[in-house]
């Protein structure tokens, strides 16, 4: 199951656009799951105002330093600022929403 390098949703006039980066290392079950989860969450909560960039560290190892990537998968919210990081397969939707500041921490 191939990833698309960029999944760009149409810009929305309301709210801020979320610029997201998903770091993976090869197509492992975890990374595929993370991507699936992310896509679902974005469609549900950020419809029309998100952008996902997938970076495979096996292909671009030098990119790991810039965003201080340690764990994979790591989701980085580059915009809106400040930068947020969520690690793991994103299977806990609640936590992902909290991590993205889309929901207030309970």
């Amino acid at each position, binding site marked *: 199951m191939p990833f698309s390098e960029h999944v760009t949703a149409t810009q929305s006039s309301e709210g801020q656009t979320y610029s997201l980066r998903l770091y993976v*290392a090869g197509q492992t079950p975890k990374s595929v799951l993370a991507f699936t989860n992310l896509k679902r969450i974005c469609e549900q909560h950020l419809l029309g105002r998100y952008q996902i960039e997938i970076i495979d560290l096996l292909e671009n190892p030098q990119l790991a330093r810039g965003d201080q990537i*340690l*764990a994979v998968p*790591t989701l980085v919210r580059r915009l809106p600022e400040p*930068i947020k990081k969520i690690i*793991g397969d994103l299977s806990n939707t609640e936590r992902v929403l909290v991590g993205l500041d889309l929901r207030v921490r309970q």
Partner: protein
Amino acid sequence: MSPGVDDVIGQEQPTSGAGDSHQGRAGELPKSLTGIRGLDEITRGGLPTGRPTLVCGGPGSGKTLLALTFLVNGALQFDEPGVLMTFEENEGEIASDVASLGFDLPELVKAQKLAVDYVRVERSEIEETGEYDLEGLFVRLDHAIRTVGARRVVLDTIESLFAGLKNDTILRSELRRLFRWLKEQGVTALITGERGDGALTRQGLEEYVSDAVILLDHRVHDQVSTRRLRVVKYRGSHHGTNEYPFLIDADGISVLPVSSLALRHKAPLDRVSSGVARLDEMLSGEGYYRGSTILVSGTAGTGKTSLAAHFLDAACGRGERCLCFLFEESPQQLLRNMRSIGIDLEPWTASGLLQFHADRPSRYGLETHLVTMHQAVADFQPTVTVIDPVTNLMTVGTYTDVQAMLTRLIDHLKTANITAMLTSLMPGPGDIERTETAISSLMDTWIVLANDQVGNRHRRGLYVLKSRGMAHSNELCEFVMTNHGLDLLAGAGTTHRVVGGVENGSAEGGVRHAVL
């Protein structure tokens, strides 16, 4: 098995995870020199090549410095590029930390001999959700190793990850995988860990890194600190098991492996005068051997410093450079006191032949004293050195520490062919200080000064307890302090006058008896 950096990816390592079973075979494992003086001797050749070694110790114990020295020496001396993965300080901080030691990290990075990667983990910035692994860390490490063709890797301090990530289970299994992976890369790795309560490291890293473990310790005894190093474990190799004092100075780390005092000093045959003609006569007519070490011991006021002053005066008179460490008096006091017995050292200090270094013993720890003395010797390049009194250093360390320090110092002076005189203050007649028994075996010549009283007359006596490699007088000779210095009353050897002796039970006899 030590695969090159280039041929490891994708290559199956049948022994991975079972690498431990290789140990215990006949013959020692290949080792990689650290270039750290002393450590390579204790470990008989360095760290295990292609395997991880754990260095643990408390904060400020010198872990990072030891690790960096290992890397820098690898790059500069052994043509082994290295990778530094740092978890606590960034590149700039690390570089400035070690710049004072002459390590130019940016230059090494530029020359592709070193790759530095700062891994920052901030718990507050990270949300954890679901399963993950630390492949990102592996990717970074692998990338850094390939960039410079690294043979050495330092992880400092990987335990920081435990503070940054919540899932200990994942972390532990990933660390286990990391150390196995490092072995597969064939890199000689050094992993630092913070000392934990009742364990070598807080997170029990010693479970994962089991090939070699080095423990650093920074102890304070009587408000004076001493650093020590111990090789706790070294699989498949013999190693020194003692605690060794080590020091950190302008040249970096050096460990003092006392047992390594190899007998490699030159044994010059030329002699130097003691500055007292009759004492020279007692020493087979010619004085001390050049490059030898002389101990002058006695109770308070017996004339130890005066004997040292004679020695300095004579050496300066021959045009020799003399360095004098004072741990009791200031140079001015010494100059004044010696002038009162007719020894004027002032012209020599004025001409630069004689230099004093006065310090309170309690001012520093032993290691710092040692360092300071080494540096003073290196700077001044003396041929004669006096330490007055060496016993005052006893106050700043334990018996073993002082012994180790003096051994190292004397070793250094002998190697440099410097004639050294150490004075030693005995607390009372008949007492042989522990220092003296500790260092006497290092001494080539031992002169004992003693006082006694006969009637209402106070007498001073001197005898040569030992003097290696020469026929010396065994007589106890009386001397007086005159306005031209210390004057032995009798011609030594032949027409001597014995003052006291074992047989007559005088005070000197008591001293002598105790000594023998």
